[in-house]
């Protein structure tokens, strides 16, 4: 039970926290926020990593894990970079102000 009780606590509190974290967001930030949150959801790369590490010599599993990792990193790296590009546009303009 121990892992699951911990997991459920963490799930409950994490969800509540997520609901509270975002309050009023100015419309100009909707797209960057969406894209940043999207990059974070690529955290599933940790699952892919774990899968690969635990798969030992099981080749199909290694391949599945590796593809999964690739997808996740595509999401993460692309997501953060693209968010940064968007935000750079805003902040470049901010500083000129």
């Amino acid at each position, binding site marked *: 039970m121990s892992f699951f009780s911990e997991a459920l606590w963490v799930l409950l509190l994490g969800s509540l926290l997520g609901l509270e974290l975002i309050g009023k967001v100015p419309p100009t930030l*909707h797209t960057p926020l*969406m894209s940043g949150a999207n990059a974070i959801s690529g955290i*599933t790369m940790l699952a892919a990593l774990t899968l690969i590490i635990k798969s030992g010599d099981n080749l199909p599993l290694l391949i599945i894990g590796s593809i999964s990792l690739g997808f996740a990193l595509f999401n993460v790296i692309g997501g953060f970079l*693209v968010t940064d590009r968007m935000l750079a*546009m805003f902040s470049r303009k901010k500083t000129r102000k």
Partner: protein
Amino acid sequence: MTFIAPIKFAIDLLAVLLLALGIKGLSKVRSAREANRLAAIAMMLAAFGVLLNSQGTIGISINSWIWIICGTLIGGLLGALTAKRVPMTAMPEIVALFNGCGGMSSLLVALGVALFPSSESSDGIVGELIRNFSIVVSLFVGAITFSGSIVAMAKLQGWLSTPSWTQSKARHFFNIFCAVLASIGGIYLLIDGKNGLFLILIASSLLGVGVTLPIGGADMPVVISLLNSYSGVAAAAAGFVVGSQLLIVAGAMVGAAGLILTQVMCDGMNRSLVSVLFGGALGASSASSGGGGGEYTNITSCSPEECALSLEAAERVVIVPGYGLAVAQAQHTLREVTRVLENADIEVTYAIHPVAGRMPGHMNVLLAEADVPYEQLKEMDIINPEFPATDVVLVLGANDVVNPQAKTDQSSPLYGMPVLDVQEARTVFVVKRGMSAGYSGIKNDLFDLPNTSMVFGDAKKVLGDLLLELKELGVGSKG
């Protein structure tokens, strides 16, 4: 080994803290950029924690390292390239693509675990059940996220249109059918942990397509945000599958935050989430009905030449950019026109409506790309009182955001949405291709007003003509 577990644990806690700060910071203009970096650092930390812990406990074989590096390099490089290459105007579709891949990743993890269950699990029957349940959730949500996001991207890119059958009630039956199939697959899988796997995959992928396909392109940002929330859920489910608290917290946070963001976006465009998801395409139905809601009786149309003459005589000009400007990719031409006007000492400002265009902040991004100085961009609340003192307003491919009905007509679907009061200005020119309605499919009373003239044509083309006319008139040529 006794040292590694606490270190890994501390890293996990720190990563979650940074992620929370990141999400919070991203919702404020001042801190957004640093917050994004913070979140990226948190992710790196988290990955490092997993590698460290595994290396220190069970060890990572060379084989595993190779596959890890392969996956990382290929995925990372492709992601970086895509992120650098994509034009700013294609943001929503690219976010959809990334998001879909995140969902696919969760799905593959669950698939791997389901196909090759590790023998070590010994949590008793309850543990088994919870694990299988997580696999089902991960597959289901991951597949919906993936197929839905890909459809969203394809529709935004124009690769897919909205088939007419998807606008009929039949789609609801199709979707319900898929959902039932997926549930059956889920129950099978719950019981024996293997059967039903592909049934879930196929049914939920079809469900993702069936739900996303009928939605109009304009509502896509909301759908993408919702799918993003789903991919958080998928990540949390994957966390249950592989037994990672960090993944569960992070997934839950993103899932919940995404839900709130979706709601905030809906509010911003005066739509409800339910109508976005189940209402079908707004644009599609309005396009077929032509103008929609009443006929125009008093349209004045004029040529770019007349428009140029008015501009030459003006002292204060306000530009109202809208969706049409983005579609026509006319922002650079626009910038050239305004440069000419500025050279002639005409004061030019841009009125930015918060939901002009098809994604939040669309106009800011668009105009920033064309190097419009930030000081000239004015938000709705600031510019609205200034319209009465404005000589010429140039409405470029905007429609709903300048519709006075939103203030005057209680029965209008737009009623209550804040709009730009362009009709207060002396003269208004509206540049669009024809008389068709905007996103909401509603007649625009502005076009009927005596001080409004239509300049028909593609925004880029009209602006190009305008530029020629202005040069011919010698405006801004410093002589």
